[in-house]
């Protein structure tokens, strides 16, 4: 009924204006003015009509959607007439009160929920895939199929002052054992003064480009070797907090300072037990040939993990953006015997990201992204006496030929490990990318590796321990091809050529497939 009235008004008003003024004057400008008025009236009517229709549609939707009966559309959405009605008020969302429920679903949810499932299938000539050729905790871990991770993300505004996020990951290891991880779970401030932002909870350390990212954002099937070895299979993340300051420079500069616990498997290079984690390089002798026994707990501030990062970005042209970062991580480690000394680890990193995207890209394509990270780790390892672990007749005990095959006594020393990855990704047409990554790792040979130590075989003698496989030189080359049918799914084929000193060459082929349900986190740079 109302609609019909609006139609009648729309038709009759211009006619009425015309009829009323027709006899009076033929002045052209006046006619023009009348036309304009008529037109305005028509627009008004149309707009009112549209608003009415929209309101009705929204009511219908609210009625049709399950459970969505209660909320009539806001006044602002009901489209006032552009020519007469007061201008819509600026956004004034309903003030949240703690009594309000947390709702899921629809465009008005208080929380965005997303689920990503990432899987791999393939094979390798290597027998030691998990922790051998692949160092990341969510990398393909066996021939056949791997559940790399099924990850749920919950995020949203907590209240006007805070934002919260939780990422929970479910995976299956090579033995078929399921495991659950809380990757992230934190809250952060929305607008602190002085350009500061504080985040606290279970957080990723802001170290370089790869470390703070999740599996589904990676451009390759697996973790870069340098991240897997120097920061740990699951990356560097732990309970803690960081403060990030956006500098008032004309270009983007951010300074981030993190403080976290230094123990646990997600701080592998610190008091994480020297890489003894799921998916770690855990076969054979422990890191630096000494067990991680030297756990002193947290006594002072310096027993925490400190991670500063400085990052800047420059636009070289309308199409080229450069990002440069420097990161470090300092904290205690537990490598060596109890009372073996106050040993610490320092990790330094530098990263460079270069991105080209033309000004008339279609769906984000084409683009070229070149990303490189170099890391250097200095690990102080405490003294260690193998006689505490057994005698020369116990298999697995480390023996020293210089002392008539008595259990070895290892001195305190500082070990240096370093490596880099560099990767180039070319999005050559919408939905298609091809990439090439080079991984390289090496370390300075430690004194303990040069002593000619033996691993006891139970007969009083043993086999040469050789180089520390957890620090040995290796490199890898990985070409791949990815198809994104939409932003919500992908299929990726990757080949890895692995060359490990003292082990040899291996070939692996992995097919990765992924789906995403629900909220899709926006793309960060």
């Amino acid at each position, binding site marked *: 009924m109302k609609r019909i009235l609006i139609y009648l008004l729309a038709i009759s008003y211009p006619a009425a204006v015309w009829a009323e003024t027709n006899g009076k004057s033929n002045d052209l400008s006046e006619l023009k003015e009348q036309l304009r008025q008529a037109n305005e009236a028509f627009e008004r009517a149309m*707009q009112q009509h549209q608003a009415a229709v929209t309101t009705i549609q929204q009511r219908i939707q609210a009625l049709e959607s399950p459970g969505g009966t209660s909320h009539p559309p806001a006044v*602002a959405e009901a*489209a006032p007439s552009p020519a007469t009605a007061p201008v*819509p008020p600026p956004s*004034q969302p309903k003030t949240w009160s703690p009594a309000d429920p947390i709702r899921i679903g629809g465009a008005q949810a208080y929380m965005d929920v997303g689920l990503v499932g990432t899987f791999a299938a393939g094979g390798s000539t290597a027998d030691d895939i998990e922790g051998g050729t692949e160092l990341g905790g969510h990398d393909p871990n066996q021939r056949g199929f791997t559940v790399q991770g099924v990850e749920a993300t919950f995020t949203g505004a907590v209240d006007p002052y805070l934002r919260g996020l939780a990422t929970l990951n479910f995976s299956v290891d090579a033995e078929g054992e399921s495991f659950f991880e809380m990757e992230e779970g934190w809250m952060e401030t929305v607008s602190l003064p002085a350009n500061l932002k504080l985040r606290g909870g279970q957080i990723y350390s802001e170290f370089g480009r790869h470390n703070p990212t999740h599996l589904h954002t990676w451009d390759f099937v697996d973790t870069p070797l340098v991240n897997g070895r120097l920061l740990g299979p699951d990356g560097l993340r732990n309970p803690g907090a960081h403060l990030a300051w956006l500098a008032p420079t004309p270009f983007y500069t951010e300074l981030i300072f993190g403080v976290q616990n230094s123990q646990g498997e997600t701080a592998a290079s610190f008091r994480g037990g020297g890489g003894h984690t799921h998916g770690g390089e855990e076969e054979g002798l422990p890191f630096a040939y000494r067990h991680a026994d030297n756990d002193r707990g947290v006594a002072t501030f310096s027993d925490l993990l400190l991670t500063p990062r400085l990052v800047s970005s420059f636009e070289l042209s309308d199409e080229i953006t450069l990002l440069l970062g420097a990161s470090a991580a300092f904290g205690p480690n537990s490598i060596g015997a109890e009372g073996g000394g106050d040993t610490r680890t320092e990790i330094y990193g530098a990263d460079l990201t270069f991105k080209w995207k033309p000004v*008339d890209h279609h769906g984000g394509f084409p683009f070229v992204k070149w990303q490189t990270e170099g890391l250097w780790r200095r690990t102080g390892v405490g003294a260690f006496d193998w006689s505490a672990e057994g005698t020369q007749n116990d298999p697995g005990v480390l023996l020293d030929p210089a002392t008539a095959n008595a259990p070895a006594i290892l001195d305190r020393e500082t070990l240096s490990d370093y490596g880099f990855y560099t990767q180039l990704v070319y999005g050559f047409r919408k939905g298609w990318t091809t990439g090439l990554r080079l991984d390289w790792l090496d370390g300075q040979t430690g004194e303990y590796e040069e002593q000619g130590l033996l691993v006891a075989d139970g007969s009083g003698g043993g086999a040469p321990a050789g180089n520390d496989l957890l620090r040995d030189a290796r490199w890898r080359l990985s070409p791949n091809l990815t198809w994104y049918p939409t932003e919500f799914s992908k299929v990726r084929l990757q080949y890895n050529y692995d060359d490990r000193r003292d082990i040899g060459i291996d070939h692996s082929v992995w097919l990765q497939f992924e789906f995403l349900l629900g909220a899709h986190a*926006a793309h960060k740079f």
Partner: protein
Amino acid sequence: MKRTLTLLVLALTAMLTAQAKLNVVATTPDIASIAEVVGGDQISLTTLARPTEDPHFVDAKPSFMAKLNRADVLLHGGAELESGWLPPLLQGSRNGKIARGAPGDVRCNEGVAMLEVPVALDRSRGDIHATGNPHFLMDPVNAQVVARHIATVFAQVDASHAEDYQANARRFVDDLNARMAVWNKALAPFKGAHLVAYHNSWPYFASRFELQLDLFLEPKPGLPPSPAHLAAVIARMKEEGARVIIVDPYLSRKTAERVAGETGATVVDVTQFPGGVKGTEGGYIATMDYLVKSVADALGRGSSTR
């Protein structure tokens, strides 16, 4: 000496007032072009997306974070067009003035009657937006709504120039009303004519000028055209006598040309953003002028050969 001092003081005052300008960031160039008219000399305007690029997939450059950090007002569509890149920038901006719900957070679609609001959210239908089709500024009536909205916000945030903003918005609305008559007249002969678009960015334009926009080269929003779908489109175009294909600068003109070659249709370069194609640099009204003229010309040519 005294004169030098006076000059110095004047220069300083000028500098200070220059700095006191309202710092406005607009996500897309169409919104920016309206803000420019409303804000005039009183604002300093930054636009994030460029007119030739796909607004759904703008790179979240870190420099945008620095720009948003200094903004007094953020103008965005409010209809998820920017949802693929704006949220992390906003989170990094640490700027309470433009935080969600703050006076400087301007959702331009407020007060706009959104078209194609989905009844249910289902991604098997392609990339649809929960709040409706986000390309609402292609209807000049919606541009009027947005101009008034922007003026209200500017007047609220920068009360000293409130009257300027309101007057500028009124003038813009009047200008649009005047042009509207011209545009209506230019497209009146083609009421009900079929338009084919690559992507569904044009329902607001079509409904305003009563054109029929029901064929798209994309099988579903965001999906690349498949040969089977294009064959179907070609058949439908022949059946319906659709003679015009409109293509945004960031979409594949080649695909459109191939379809045009099969059907004898004309490919028209269109843009939602001032500066997106040559001849639209002058702003919102210039862009609409261009759109109406090029679409009317193409439809005219189509009907003369029919």
